[in-house]
């Protein structure tokens, strides 16, 4: 507002600007806003909103690429949920199992790592970098490296076990029982020291020192201070990492494609492998779109429940939400 008042009185350069357009300043601001945002708006329509509507429509059709989509009502959803597609529920189960282990362990370890880095140890910057490096590793490289570590006869992991007296180590990725936990370890290695840890670290650094000192004077020990001072104050960060972590875990795909190809015996056949298989191997785009929407609804529901639930336990300073 002030700027506008001032501009009207200023020198010739601005007068020229004013004369060029017949629009009022308010209308010009409106137009500029739309224009600057237009690349994103266009991208949203072309690559997000349009495709979402299209896949919703396709989910009610039978559609092989090259043919015309034929509307078949809810058949795709029935086919999935009724178990006629006999890998639907197992793949859903694997994925949920993966998320149920990865999310709590991942968040706890990220918080533990961030807490360690917040202790002003000497060489914190080095520790932080070393913790962070695996999360920079491309998933393809991580999978290739870990396949080698898991290699039963010459791999580093079974060699370590051999040092500890285990003569014949497990055949990690080759056995249905151990394949899923093995992939979880790869997932933890690439995620614990990554974004979640940095976000926790930023959260921990914003906890006022005074509160800690005050609690210490009241006789609270380190654990009590962490539990009763730090933890409540970083609940917004925990909530953020929880939402992101759940979605990331449910999306697990590449590591399974690369390290196990979904096997052995479908032990790591995650939901997105299933979806990918129908969409881009069988090119059954209609059924695959239904799978995609089931996945989307799952993610939306979980995120919504998470937000609802967060009102009970997330503490926002000053009572307002970001």
């Amino acid at each position, binding site marked *: 507002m002030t700027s506008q008042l001032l501009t009207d009185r200023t020198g010739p350069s601005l007068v020229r600007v004013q004369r060029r357009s017949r629009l009022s300043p308010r209308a010009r601001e409106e137009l500029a806003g739309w224009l600057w945002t237009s*690349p994103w708006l266009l991208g949203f329509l072309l690559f997000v909103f349009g495709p979402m509507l299209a896949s919703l429509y396709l989910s009610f059709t039978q559609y092989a690429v090259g043919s015309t989509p034929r509307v078949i009502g809810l058949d795709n959803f029935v086919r999935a949920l009724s178990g006629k597609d006999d890998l639907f529920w197992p793949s859903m189960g694997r994925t949920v199992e993966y998320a149920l282990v990865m999310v709590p362990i991942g968040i706890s370890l990220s918080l533990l790592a961030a807490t360690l880095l917040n202790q002003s140890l000497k060489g914190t910057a080095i520790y932080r970098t070393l913790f962070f490096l695996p999360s920079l590793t491309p998933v393809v490289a991580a999978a290739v490296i870990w396949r080698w570590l898991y290699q039963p006869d010459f791999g580093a992991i079974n060699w370590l076990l051999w040092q500890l007296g285990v003569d014949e180590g497990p055949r990690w990725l080759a056995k249905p029982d151990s394949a899923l936990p093995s992939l979880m370890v790869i997932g933890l290695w690439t995620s614990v020291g990554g974004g979640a840890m940095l976000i926790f670290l930023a959260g921990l650094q914003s906890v006022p020192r005074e509160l800690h000192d005050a609690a210490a004077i009241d006789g609270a020990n380190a654990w009590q201070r962490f539990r009763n001072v730090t933890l409540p104050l970083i609940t917004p960060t925990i909530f953020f990492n929880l939402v992101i972590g759940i979605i990331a875990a449910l999306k697990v795909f590449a590591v399974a494609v690369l390290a196990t190809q979904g096997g052995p015996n479908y032990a790591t056949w995650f939901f997105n492998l299933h979806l990918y298989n129908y969409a881009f191997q069988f090119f059954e785009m209609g059924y695959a779109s239904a799978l995609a929407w089931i996945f989307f609804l799952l993610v939306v529901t979980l995120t919504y429940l998470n937000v609802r639930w967060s009102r009970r336990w997330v503490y926002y300073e000053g009572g307002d939400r970001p």
Partner: protein
Amino acid sequence: MSAAEPLVTFARAIAPPRSRQQFPGYLSRGMLYAIATLGAVVFMGPFFFALSGSLKSAAEIHIFPPPLVPSQPEWGNYVRLFEMPGAYFARWYLNSIIITLASMVGTIVSACAAAYGFSRFRWGLRDFFFIVLLSTLVLPEEVVIIPKFLLFHYVPEALFGHTWIDTWWPLILPSWFGGGAFSVFLLRQFFLQIPRDLDEAAVIDGANSWQILWKILLPLAKPALATVAIFSFLTHWNDFFHPLIYLSTVENFPMSVGLRWFQQLANDPGEPREHLLMAASMLMVLPCVVIFFTMQRYFVRGIVLSGIKG
């Protein structure tokens, strides 16, 4: 806060100087170092074995117990990689660099524009679209991938007479339209923290909105720009899903799907190739590490200053 003030003063008065440590005592301090070091070893171990594996000779790769370090480092592995029949590592590497840089530039340019629109102008549906932008943060790409695939097949076919499947367009073009919700959000948060007085002063000096962005906001937003650049680099360099779906000609592959192609070649029985796989993995990790170290100083600041902590 005011209620706690006397307590805080009291605490400051009696607290020993430089009492940064939360776990007092010599022993527990040592334990913290031990845990941190253990963590570092666990995180770095795989890299160590990968690097040592990449320098072993074919003869040394299938020995048990495996030698921790190769008896004689075979740097030639890194050369042999580029001469492997059936693999095109030089080509894949170059492809990755081109795709990543083109997407990164698109992300920075279009995310800056959108963030500027969201942070500095009042326009009709701004707040509505900002919520929309935020909700796309949690939108799984899997939901839109099928129509996007069809879009990149049918639309260019109708317009130019040939499909864009098996070209780089589907990998690069979307970045030029907003560059992803995270980039826009991060830059917007950063722009909002730059005082408006600066813009207003510039307006008085006759600056138009383009000049305000270019001369005032962007120079001040360097940490956020660096953060967006790093994230975008890593996202596109590491991307496996999209190239897997869109590309089928081996010569068009970036490193991610190329390495997988090579992995499947290497799975064939015959001469061991794990050392070459390790060398290829190290080559794929290298640019990520380099870009992180060169921009690290901005990166952490970018995250902290944007207030993304919940």
